[in-house]
């Protein structure tokens, strides 16, 4: 699967990124409606002020006049007109919101679990991915979301959808993408150190491709060389949220030079970071905790196949 190919900055209109669903388009219309009302009112207010500033400067001597302190008509106008505008905006915003909120009954359902700091996606057929959400184009998709630890929020800018994930509770969003390609997913509810690395990719693909993808258990990596797969998993599984490759300390230790080095554990023991140790660190992170770090790494048991783990080990080896 390719990297994100649709930039947020360079597509779409001046203000908004490209919209890839009908509702997103409608949201944009409202955005621009408010935008132009604001711009016009703003120019009006500023223009009038500027005119007064120039016209009634203290240096412009002017005859003494009775001060105007009331004008019922104008006061009513500037109360009533904004009120009406506001009600229009409210109503429009609300109806679109309900459309954004209420999924059609036949939507494909995908479960999303947010945890510090990665996204899990579970498909009905048992396929499970981390950080990669694939959906068919022109088909309604509903995400049933919940969080494992703290609040997270699932945000796809191109679809104009966003919703918080809450522990012990389900929230949902739905969308129907009308364009294929890869798009950015963000976590937008602050969730700690890895918040800004809690990213994922949305892949919108034609139905047949989607079916293949599902059947192969979330895209086949069979042909990829191990080290390359490791590099891919490093990003896809969210290891990069906590581990750097350049030696700088993040939430977890950097992977630079880890392989075969001596690791000081909180238990007081020192061990060598061989293949077994790394494997253990991945599937049961709580067992050996490196000194100086909090025991916060999630377990990847069940999320990574043996081949995946081997691939990551190869990748870590390569970080010298």
């Amino acid at each position, binding site marked *: 699967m390719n990297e994100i190919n649709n930039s947020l900055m360079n597509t779409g209109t001046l203000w908004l990124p490209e919209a890839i669903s009908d509702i997103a388009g409608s949201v944009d219309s409202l955005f621009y409606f408010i935008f132009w009302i604001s711009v016009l009112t703003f120019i009006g207010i500023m223009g009038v002020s500027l005119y007064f500033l120039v016209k009634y400067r203290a240096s412009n001597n002017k005859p003494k006049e009775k001060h105007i302190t009331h004008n019922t008509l104008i006061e009513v106008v500037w109360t009533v007109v904004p009120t009406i505008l506001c009600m229009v905006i409210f109503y429009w915003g*609300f109806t679109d919101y309900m459309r954004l909120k209420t999924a059609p009954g036949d939507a494909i359902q995908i479960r999303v679990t947010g945890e510090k700091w990665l996204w899990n996606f579970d498909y009905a057929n048992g396929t499970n991915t981390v950080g990669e959400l694939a959906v068919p184009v022109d088909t309604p998709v509903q995400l049933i979301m919940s969080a494992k630890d703290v609040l997270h929020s699932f945000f796809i800018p191109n679809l*104009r959808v966003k919703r918080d994930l809450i522990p012990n509770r389900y929230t949902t969003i739905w969308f129907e993408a009308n364009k294929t390609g890869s798009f950015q997913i963000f976590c937008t509810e*602050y969730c700690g150190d890895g918040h800004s690395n809690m990213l994922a990719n949305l892949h919108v693909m034609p139905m047949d491709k989607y079916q293949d993808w599902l059947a192969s258990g979330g895209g086949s990596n069979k042909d990829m060389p191990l080290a390359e797969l490791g590099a891919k998993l490093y990003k896809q599984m969210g290891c990069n949220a906590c581990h750097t490759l350049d030696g700088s300390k993040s939430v977890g230790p950097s992977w630079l030079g880890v392989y075969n080095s001596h690791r000081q554990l909180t238990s007081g023991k020192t061990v060598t970071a061989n293949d077994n140790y790394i494997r253990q660190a991945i599937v049961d992170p709580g067992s050996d905790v490196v000194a100086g770090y909090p025991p916060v790494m999630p377990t990847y048991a069940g999320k990574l196949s043996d081949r995946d783990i081997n691939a990551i080990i190869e990748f870590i080896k390569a970080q010298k």
Partner: protein
Amino acid sequence: MSTKTIKNYLNCETGIMSWLTTLDHKRIGVMYLLFIAISFGLGGFFALALRMELLTPTQLYLTAKQYNQAFTLHGAVMVFLFIIPSIPAALGNFVLPLQLGAKDVAFPRLNLASFYVYVLGAAFAIFSLFNGAVDTGWTFYTPYSTQSDTSVISMTLAAFILGFSSILTGVNFIATIHKMRAPGMTWFRMPLFVWALYATAIIQILATPVVGITLLLLIFESTFGVGIFDPALGGDPILFQHFFWFYSHPAVYIMVLPAMGVMSELVTTFCKKNIFGYKLIAYSSLAIAIISFLVWGHHLFLSGQSSYANMIFSLLTFLVGIPSGIKVFNWVTTMYKGTIDLKTPFLYFLSFLFLFCIGGFTGMFLGALSVDVHLHDTYFVVAHFHYTMMGGVVMAFLGGLHYWWPKMFGKMYSEKWGRIAAAFVFVGFNWVFFTQFILGTKGMPRRYYNYLDQFQPLHAFSTMGTFVLGTGFIIMAVYLIHSLFKGEKAPANPWGGLTLEWVADTPPDHHNFHETPTVTTGPYDYEKAGY
């Protein structure tokens, strides 16, 4: 009682103890001012720190945790230590009794107590800074805040204590406004700044205790567990957000209402015109205060709040725009056929008008449900609230500060440098934050330490603006401090203001007025004054 001497409140007693134990509202106001300036510097320091980090998409010089602490402390310091007390406690304390023609606030001792409560709260905040800081965001959302290993408890305690300082100020102002008005000063002869402080005081009294108890509950939650915010026990984390915003939304009007009051003073004085729609402005302050209690849910649109509640809150949110608009239009109309004098305070008035309108209009974007789905928790929100808080409230604060500076210290500052600094601040501010509107609509989430490479040009541009803004503040600090020592002596009424504080000496006497003034007209009767 008041013998005619050249003594004023600044030099009638000397020595540090005479300040620390003073019951004079003017001195207490000045002490607040000092602390608030320091807090602003501290908050600004964190702002610079976090903007620097955002120069590059990945790590520049802070770790993720340090960055998170930086924006949390920036937000918490700016909100709790700086902006909430800024206009009411510093300027209001100084000006309110003077404008009412009173000798002091109703409870001078309580006033001093509220100052010390503030200092105590500040001490806790500083303590938490050195005790591991906080990394929860200024909103302290659960369950993250009950799990974070940083010093959340001391910071929430700080906010709790600071809340009480604010409540005491509110209680004091209510009693003062009701009972201490000079003879002849009816409700509709009160200056609009007083009206604004009155509306503010109501919110302070009725909203602040809720955040107090909320933060207390948070503390208990993380120490003993109360369970009500903890999903693992069957509690509801969204409840915390309800509790928090029940206060914190009205709190934004605690900030902006006094700012609007200052605006009304500035526009009349520098246009030499009776204000347009006095009563409407006064009532709209009350209207805003009341509506402000009904809209807190607009911060929860995407939190899992029910759609019914979303609908109600969205509808009510739009209602706030109307009284705010009334004020804006009234100020503009006041300029009509005025005698406009572009002095430094009036420049801040214009900045406020410009920036607050942008801040307010973008609030309308956020209030619209479907649009908020896209914009929530992006830099658009960051830009919105900086336009209202910094662009609105801080501009008004600076305007008020420059307006009353001669009265406070008896010295004039350099008008030329004042204008230059105002220009720097205005340009720098737009530079930093207008950029962030575009970042936000394009999808850049807030509270992000790392970001996508494609956002870098705008982020870097925004960071550059910070230095222009900072320069403006440094210039200001220099000429204001300079004026204290070398400034020209200020006349009693440098701007030709008509409210009662300009009747008092400059700086005012210890007892404010030599004899209690009697009021016979409205506060802004410039027509009678010959304009």
